[in-house]
């Protein structure tokens, strides 16, 4: 098709398509859209994300941790522990419960391997499931 014919066809189609009409959306279409939108907005406000620790909380934690680290690094005074002996805790016997339990408890190597394996497996599963549900926008 040469350029002239092409232009002629274009002009004809411009004329013809003036009689074109759009398909009509169903009756009450816009009302249905707005109803769905309102439902979404209500749901969104009901289940809006709220952090467990607020920004102020995180700032307070950060200040506490940094002041503790600062104290450990820059404080040159020795901590005096002589008040501890006044409690006379040594008279109560062996207080180290963990050591006592550890001495009597026997755990085989294979049990430890199995437990470590289980922990790793659970860690991976939690991460994988979290991603999977986040993708499908399922709220847990």
């Amino acid at each position, binding site marked *: 098709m040469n350029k002239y014919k092409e232009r*002629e*066809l274009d002009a*004809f189609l411009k*004329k013809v398509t003036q*009689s074109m009409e*759009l398909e009509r*959306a169903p009756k009450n279409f816009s009302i249905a*859209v707005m109803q769905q939108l309102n439902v979404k907005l209500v749901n969104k406000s009901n289940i809006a994300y709220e952090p467990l620790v607020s920004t102020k909380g995180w700032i307070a934690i950060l200040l506490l941790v940094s002041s503790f680290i600062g104290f450990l690094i820059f404080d040159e005074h020795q901590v005096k522990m002589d008040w501890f002996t006044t409690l006379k805790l040594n008279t109560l016997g062996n207080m180290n419960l963990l050591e006592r339990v550890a001495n009597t408890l026997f755990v085989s190597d294979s049990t430890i391997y199995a437990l470590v394996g289980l922990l790793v497996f659970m860690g991976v599963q939690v991460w994988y499931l979290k991603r999977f549900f986040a993708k499908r926008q399922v709220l847990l």
Partner: protein
Amino acid sequence: MSKDKDQPLITRAITGDTSAFAKLVENYQHMVYTLALKLVKRPEDAQEVAQDSFLRAYQALSTFKGDSKFSTWLYKITYNKGLDFLKKRKRMLEINDVDYNFNVNISALENNWDSLEKQEQRQTIKNAVQELSATDGILITLFYFEELSLIEIADILGLNDNAVKVKLFRARKRLSYILRRKLEPETIEGYEAHKGRSIN
């Protein structure tokens, strides 16, 4: 609809004024529904795609920077929603790659067109566009009815403007072939009969 005309409604909708968004839905519902129907073919599916498109547009409204017209941005969402719908239903986008090579007498075609009543003209072009494949129908609607530029159509379809130019050229030829068949059925029948005799 112009960019300036929509902008106040968009600004109000972003700040949470749902009545402003309702006005946008009202203004664009028929075009969005038409595009969705051309893609998915069934009215009930088209309604679903069109509704999802508006909901998606509302969610993403704050990301609309105004680089393009709101309508172009909305049609792009609709087109992508339609493709997602087809993919989900394991259906394919209807494409017609048949290239018609024929000499059409435009003046004769135009005379036949002019002799039709207004109502007949409306019905003829409606039926002709319906016979086109989904992509051809969308191209013709966006270019001739919505009067979008090749660049705007390319943006909606995710193609480059040269590809759109080629596709539009072919869509035009296919539409003129369908129109000729509708406006000059006896000519086509005669040609087909002649062709049949030549083959035999």
